[in-house]
């Protein structure tokens, strides 16, 4: 092959201008045209040792699919991705590519990496646009039954794999809509719900049944499910929101990010024909620096708040959110109050009016390797606001563990599992996703679900635990 000419920058992806998009809920980037996609795919050097793949938790054959995109064989490309990643339309949009595939692309040392996420998204959308998503032929049925608990990325991925292996799959979901964080947490402007629905429909088309309004632990315990099913996959996520335990935290107008985002996304409070209320607020403060915090802060602007401010205890470099989200938030006018820690909520007549904060400086690196924020004595100050959203993290809900004494959990509430097989301490029960890792990423949840599905298949065949 002739030596490749390096194109230093990504082909620009057109997107809604910031001034316009803060007034609507439509997706921000429009996605590539076929020509743009082919041009971007041609930037890939087709490395003999593709480092990019080391960064992908599900081992997508990145150079392979990029070569097909470059040739205009989009169907071939999407088929290749789907060998290891069932939800490319979603991962292309939400993976933290800058620390995964794109972060370790060789080009990234000196130039912009190949836009792997964008291209993954492009081919998945292209396929959906063709209107005929290929449904693999139904395999011979094994007669074995698996219960999948939770319909987030972990549950959906495992359900799809298990159905394709010929097992009978029932998915149980507590909420009235399947999708997990993809429907209740991540906003429409970042991940259109039609895409999630498409993936859910795909899983159903493979033969999996989805039962909504079904809370495992209360409607049926794991032991009761095991009377009817040969194995269980727990994909119940990390839904329990953390609070800070600060004075005034329970004043009206102080929300967990889960409540704020659920009111808006799942219950569609932003649409007038829906009944669920949410406080719009003139000035909205969001505490935290992850994707959840960016989503809340950007949602606040779209609900009509005049100002949206993020309060984060470390510096900009440590913000755990995807780079693209931080960039989009800044473009939209979200303000960042960095190196700032809340110390108390103040209010009047039961409603929150101000957040008292203290300024930090960066000290020595802590256990996470990031420099630790150290409060500067006497630097207390107030930020006035009428809505405050706490987005500092979440852990698994204790509901199932409480009703299943043999299920071993860790101190932080996560379920203990062998990461080679995703087996838990209870026979027949596997687990994957945020329930194991605590709040992590969509792609990690899917990766674990794939491991679990193979291990379940093995277990059903051999009966060996």
């Amino acid at each position, binding site marked *: 092959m002739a030596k490749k000419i390096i194109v230093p920058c990504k082909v620009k992806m057109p997107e809604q201008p910031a001034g316009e998009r803060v007034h609507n809920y439509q997706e921000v980037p429009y996605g590539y045209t076929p020509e743009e996609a082919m041009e971007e795919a041609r930037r890939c050097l087709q490395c003999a040792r593709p480092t990019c793949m080391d960064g992908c938790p599900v081992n997508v054959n990145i150079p392979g699919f990029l070569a097909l995109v470059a040739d205009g064989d989009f169907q071939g490309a999407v088929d290749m991705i789907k060998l290891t990643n069932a939800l490319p339309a979603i991962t292309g949009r939400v993976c933290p590519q800058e620390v995964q595939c794109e972060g370790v692309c060789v080009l990234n040392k000196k130039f912009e990496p190949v836009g792997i996420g964008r291209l993954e998204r492009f081919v998945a959308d292209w396929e959906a646009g063709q209107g005929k998503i290929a449904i693999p032929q139904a395999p011979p049925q094994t007669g074995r039954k698996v219960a999948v608990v939770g319909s987030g990325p972990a549950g959906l991925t495992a359900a799809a794999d298990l159905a394709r292996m010929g097992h009978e799959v029932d998915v149980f979901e*507590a*909420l*009235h809509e399947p999708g997990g964080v993809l429907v*209740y947490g991540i906003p429409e402007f970042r991940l259109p719900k039609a895409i999630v629905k498409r993936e859910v429909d795909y899983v159903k088309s493979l033969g999996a049944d989805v039962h*909504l*309004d*079904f*809370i495992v632990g*209360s*409607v*049926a315990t794991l032991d009761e499910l095991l009377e009817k099913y040969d194995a269980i996959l727990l994909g119940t996520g990390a*839904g*329990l*929101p953390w*609070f800070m*335990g600060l004075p005034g*935290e*329970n*004043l*009206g*107008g102080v*929300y*967990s990010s*889960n*409540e704020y985002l*659920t*009111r808006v996304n799942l*219950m*569609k409070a932003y649409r007038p*024909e*829906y*009944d*669920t*209320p949410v*406080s719009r607020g003139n000035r909205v403060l969001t505490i935290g620096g992850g994707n959840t915090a960016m989503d809340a802060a950007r949602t606040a602007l779209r609900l009509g708040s005049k100002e949206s401010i993020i309060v984060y205890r470390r510096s900009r470099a440590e913000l755990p959110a995807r780079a693209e989200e931080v960039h989009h938030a800044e473009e939209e006018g979200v303000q960042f109050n960095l190196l700032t820690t809340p110390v108390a909520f103040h209010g009047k*007549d*039961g*409603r929150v009016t101000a957040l008292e904060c203290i300024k930090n400086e960066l000290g020595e690196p802590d256990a996470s390797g990031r420099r630790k924020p150290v409060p500067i004595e006497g630097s207390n100050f107030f930020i006035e606001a009428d809505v405050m959203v706490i987005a500092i993290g979440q852990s698994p*809900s*204790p*509901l199932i563990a409480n009703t299943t004494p043999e299920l071993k959990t860790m101190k932080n509430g996560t379920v203990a599992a062998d990461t080679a097989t995703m087996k838990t301490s209870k026979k027949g029960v596997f687990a994957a996703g945020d329930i194991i890792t605590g709040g992590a990423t969509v792609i990690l949840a899917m990766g674990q679900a794939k491991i679990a599905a193979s291990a379940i298949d093995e277990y059903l065949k051999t009966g060996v635990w």
Partner: protein
Amino acid sequence: MYKILRKEVFSETVKLMVLEAPLVAHKAKAGQFVIVRMDETGERIPLTIADFDAEKGTITIIFQEVGKSTMQMGLMEEGEYFENVVGPLGHATEIKNYGKVIVVAGGVGIAPIFPIARALKQAGNHVTAIIGARNKSLLFWEDRMRAETDHVIICTDDGSYGRKGLVTEPLKEILEQNKDIAQVWAIGPSIMMKFASLTTKPFNVPTLVSLNTVMVDGTGMCGGCRVVMDSGAKFVCVDGPEFDGHHVDWDLLLSRLSFFRDEERQAVERWKEQDHKCRTDIMFENGIKEGQNG
């Protein structure tokens, strides 16, 4: 989809519905609740399971129309369907033989207290029921309560039936005259539960209340239902709904409950403008009056 098998109109603003919900009915216990959603655009509304029949696969809900969602639910008829019913949620009441107990119900609180009173009686307790309502027309299930308890005292605010006055008065009298009351349950509007708890406090009689905070998911995921106890914040949906009334921060609870009042009022107004004018005018006025007390 969950079918409405039977509807009973107790008063202009209080309705009973029997719903087909076999999975819930199979597991339900006294003290638990469901969350219902009328249709695609509806809110998720928490309601106590007022009765259940595991064999028939049915549950009974009784609700008071206080806002747009409950008013709209009130217009639903037999044969129609709820889009979603999820439950049973929350912990069941701890039923055992305590000895002598009192159950106090305010308004629509008769619904949640009924299965508790019945279970307590079946467990061998001597059960006295104190039922209060704004007026006679808002009372229901007096006959069922009489059949399932040892003694029933009725109070109305306006004296249109039973004793004139608040439920806390007979409650105090009984506690003064009987030193052997083992436990009290009080369920109704938050303000009534607050005062019932204040009434029993000097007598040191444990008093359980069933809190009706604002909720979204009912599974411990949003924290919107949080309430502050002496021991710290709790989620009503998964840690409750029953709590020791002597340890609840009532003022905070009451202020959190009124948080969406403006939004809810606007929702009712917008809805009324559409077409349900005259009927809902009456319901709105009654509902908000009662809702505010509650």
